């Protein structure tokens, strides 16, 4: 009997707690609701992408234009960041390796670090900031000025023209940018190594890639594809659902960056675990 009474009390307590959190002026409750609503809508948004990408008409010209916007226009920033990280990472890694008499392992360390983690992650974070905010702001602006509705009433599918093309472009371009960022990073690293140890470029590259396996390269490419898809879909989702005028456009751009970065870190942790698990076989 007492167990039954305790159970009833517990159920009552949970019920009242839920009711309290569901009350209209409860910010915490609203945020939870909003989180689950967002999760539901973003999954529908992703499902729609996979449904529409294989259906005609294919907007090849727009995809190529978006590849140019996402890929080519990101090259200066990727070059600068990759090169500087290559130099700084090498410079900071040398003293401890020298201390253990392992300075010759520096190219291997740099190679593994860039291929496994730095290349994909740095490229993704830069793209999330530059490309994600751009997509969020552009689509957000189109949404609040009714340009997306205008496309809809002109019998043009705005999802196909605006979302599918952008997500396809970010998914295709991120691996390319990642490979480029890794190359530029290794170049910066080589300049630092060459200035200190007079190592030749061929020797440096041989050492750098000597410790890199096929699994490392393939997982980096797969990671970049996933990051590219994440950046594109989050940017488009935030832009497509922008409200409240210019303030809403700013929020859409901001949320696109923050949410993309959060997901990229979460995905990084999962992919590293999966890769390590595969490597043990």
């Amino acid at each position: 009997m007492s167990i039954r009474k305790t159970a009833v009390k517990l159920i009552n307590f949970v019920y009242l707690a839920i009711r309290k959190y569901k009350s209209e002026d409860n910010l915490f409750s609203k945020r939870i609701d909003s989180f689950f609503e967002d999760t539901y809508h973003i999954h529908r948004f992703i499902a729609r992408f996979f449904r529409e990408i294989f259906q005609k008409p294919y907007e090849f010209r727009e995809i190529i234009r978006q590849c140019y916007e996402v890929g080519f226009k990101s090259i200066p920033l990727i070059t600068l960041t990759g090169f500087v990280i290559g130099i700084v990472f090498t410079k900071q890694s040398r003293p401890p390796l020298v201390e253990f008499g392992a300075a010759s392992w520096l190219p291997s360390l740099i190679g593994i670090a860039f291929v496994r983690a730095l290349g994909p992650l740095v490229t993704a974070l830069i793209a999330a900031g530059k490309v994600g905010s751009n997509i969020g702001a552009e689509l957000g602006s189109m949404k609040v000025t009714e340009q997306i509705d205008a496309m809809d009433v002109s019998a043009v599918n705005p999802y196909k023209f605006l979302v599918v093309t952008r997500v396809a472009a970010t998914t295709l371009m991120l691996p390319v940018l990642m490979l480029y960022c890794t190359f530029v990073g290794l170049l910066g690293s080589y300049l630092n190594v060459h200035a200190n140890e007079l190592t030749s470029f061929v020797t440096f590259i041989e050492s750098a890639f000597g410790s890199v396996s096929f699994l490392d390269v393939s997982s980096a490419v797969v990671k970049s594809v996933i990051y590219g898809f994440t950046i594109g879909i989050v940017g488009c989702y935030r832009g497509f659902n922008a409200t409240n005028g210019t303030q809403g456009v700013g929020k859409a751009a901001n949320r696109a960056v923050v949410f993309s970065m959060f997901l990229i870190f979460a995905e990084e942790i999962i992919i590293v675990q999966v890769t390590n698990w595969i490597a043990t076989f």
Partner: protein
Amino acid sequence: MKNANQPEIKQEAVISVRGLYKSFGGSDVLKGIDLDVFKGENFVVLGRSGSGKSVLIKIIAGLLKPDQGSVNVLGLQVDQLSQKELQQLRLKMGFIFQSSALYDSMTIRENLEFSMIRNFKHLTSKEIDTAVIEVLDAVGLREKIEQMPSDLSGGQIKRIGIARTLILRPEIMLYDEPTAGLDPITCTEINELINQVQARYNTSSIIITHDLTCAKETGHRIAMLQDGNFQRIGSFDEIFDTDDSRVKSFFDYNFIT
């Protein structure tokens, strides 16, 4: 103007709305709207800001879903159409937004071509070019063809918005506040253009406005939307021949008698 050569209006409803309800966040905007728009008719919906006029035509265009009621356009039940069927219907239905909603990253030519290229794939680039020139001539802005929307004035943007719709040769035109934010002379020009479009392309139109001059110059029938429903439907004179203070105050405010 319109009265001098009023077109023949056939008693064949191209738009038929029955028992339409729509609310947003607990606030009822439309409460059981019934409406018929006949072929060749300019039907004006008058009402104050926030009275639900734009919501009404957005539901007719399939941009919003009604909570209750039916919307029949050219014999098709709008809320029961698939995406593909809705797209086909939208080719016959032009929508002119209050802000015109021109694609600001495209030139005027690209704005006009955009929908045509994607919906009429059999057309050659020369035929599309001819169509673009023709609609630009119809709105008197041929010389602006290579300019960006940001280079145009408010009145010119409205005209290009109308041209972008006309290029698809729609049977129905939905105008959302076509004269909002324009000076009186430009308003008159837009009103004349609406009548010219109706006469030249034999379209049936719903014109959403709170501008009585626009209503008087363009409307064959006018409906007064208040408190979520049509209070009065009739000609301009019939609408304002009343002692209803809400209708009177609307008239007095517009014409400052």
